């Protein structure tokens, strides 16, 4: 039976690609539901509240219900908006996230597209996110959105650089541009996180990751106390849902990427590899959420100053360090 299916798909690679695409896209849609639910519960617990409770046991279906509500809502397009860009922006954000998931290995062989330059691909594709935010902010014809969009672009671009540099440190250290290769290297030599240059790289990566997914203390683009809701102020219904979903899927992705780079991906004893991947991801997501509900947010000039004065030079120095200590 299984052989028959495998054979069928090997004969029709296009169909197989389609199946994978559908699975990935729905995964990208479903993952946010879980992440948002967990986020709301944790936020609630940290804040002495109970979080969602009423839809389903312990409120587990709350986010699904919310998503449904968003889908059924009227789709409002503001007057004077640049329609084409306004329509396009959320889908670009979403597609860029799906594309990232495409090259992410969950377990040995569990990867939609084995790519030997996966790391470069991810770095390139995730930049689309910035484009979509700028598009959304600009096309909404709303001053708050514009301010949010501009802030977001300044922030994301500044943090992209130290992030790429710290990822490159891993690449040079392990001598592989493919995620599978990096993980296999770690299976052999122990997790990257225990190696000094990568330790620094990991720290920088985490800080940048926080900035990339717009979390406190770097949640300026959507600082609701200042900018109402930032770049997505004018979005409603489905389009908003896509932005929201891509943001949380991104959250998931960025931790999964970190797990692959620093924590040995699926590597771990006893449990099956896929469980290890998810375990690591969820622990990291928990830390992110815990962090999110603790500090206040920085100001835009402080954020940029921090990135350019500290993170960029340190990550550059660290890159040289990693190259010097690298295996090859």
């Amino acid at each position, binding site marked *: 039976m299984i052989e028959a299916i495998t054979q069928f798909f090997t004969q029709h690679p296009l169909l197989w690609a389609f199946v994978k695409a559908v699975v990935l896209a729905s995964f990208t849609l479903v993952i946010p539901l879980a992440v948002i639910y967990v986020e709301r519960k944790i936020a609630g617990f*940290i*804040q*002495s*509240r*109970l979080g969602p409770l009423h839809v389903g046991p312990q409120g587990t279906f709350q986010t699904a219900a919310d998503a449904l509500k968003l889908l059924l809502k009227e789709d409002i397009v503001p007057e004077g908006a640049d329609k084409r860009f306004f329509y396009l922006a959320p889908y670009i954000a979403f597609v860029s996230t799906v594309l990232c998931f495409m090259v992410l290995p969950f377990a040995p062989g569990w990867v939609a597209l084995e790519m030997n330059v996966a790391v470069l691909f991810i770095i390139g594709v995730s930049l689309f996110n910035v484009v979509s935010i700028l598009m959304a902010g600009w096309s909404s014809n709303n001053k708050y959105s514009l301010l949010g969009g501009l802030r977001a672009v300044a922030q994301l671009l500044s943090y992209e650089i130290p992030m790429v540099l710290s990822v490159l440190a891993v690449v040079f250290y392990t001598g592989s541009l493919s995620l599978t290769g990096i993980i296999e290297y770690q299976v052999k030599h122990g997790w990257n996180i225990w190696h000094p240059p990568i330790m620094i790289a990991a720290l920088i990566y985490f800080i940048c990751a926080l900035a990339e997914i717009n979390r406190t203390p770097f949640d300026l683009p959507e600082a609701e106390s200042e900018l109402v809701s930032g770049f997505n102020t004018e979005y409603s219904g489905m389009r908003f849902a896509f932005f929201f979903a891509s943001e949380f899927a991104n959250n998931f992705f960025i931790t999964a990427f970190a797990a692959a780079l620093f924590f040995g991906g699926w590597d771990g004893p006893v449990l099956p590899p896929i469980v290890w991947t998810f375990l690591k991801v969820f622990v990291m997501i928990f830390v992110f959420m815990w962090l999110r509900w603790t*500090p206040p947010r920085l100001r835009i000039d402080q954020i940029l100053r921090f990135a350019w004065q500290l993170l960029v030079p340190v990550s550059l120095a660290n890159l040289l360090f990693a190259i010097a200590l690298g295996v090859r």
Partner: protein
Amino acid sequence: MSRQRAMRDTEYNPLVYFIDGLVTLFNGMVVTWRNLWRPKITVRYPYQRRPVPPRYRGLFYLKWNEEKQRLNCVGCTLCAQACPTDVISMVKLGKGTHAGVSEFTMDLGRCMFCNLCVEACPFDAIYMGPNYELASERRDVSLFRIADLAQGGEEAVRKNIETIERLLAEEEKAKPAHAAHAAGGQSE
């Protein structure tokens, strides 16, 4: 008065600030971690309710006097006069020692729940109870009539009027006799 200088920080130094930031952030996370395990304070209204303290100022009630089989209110309008927003109006029933009210209306849409009327009443007739669920989607329900306010509802109002009317009638009957008696006394 103590005059002090605020705790100031040193000149901006990226590395010092960064490390300080990490440390203090960790401190903060310790606090949030602790709170993660504290008992939650959510009261799941309307499934759960907080106990209401005895002094709570909620919906009014007119006190029912079991002994005398009537409401304590004598219709003296002191409460209406004490009210800053003219919430209370009433129809007095009878006069003298057995006076009461046959109608007592409060337009709670205007009420501030300030307690002044309760304090003004010399006969312990009006009180504020523990009911705080007075929200409604319609405007006209803010008008509370005597049957909504009296302890014991319709039944109490009916009995109240009965008792007062009976007493008034008795008084009325007793009056001529008393007058005759007085007249008789004079003639003696």
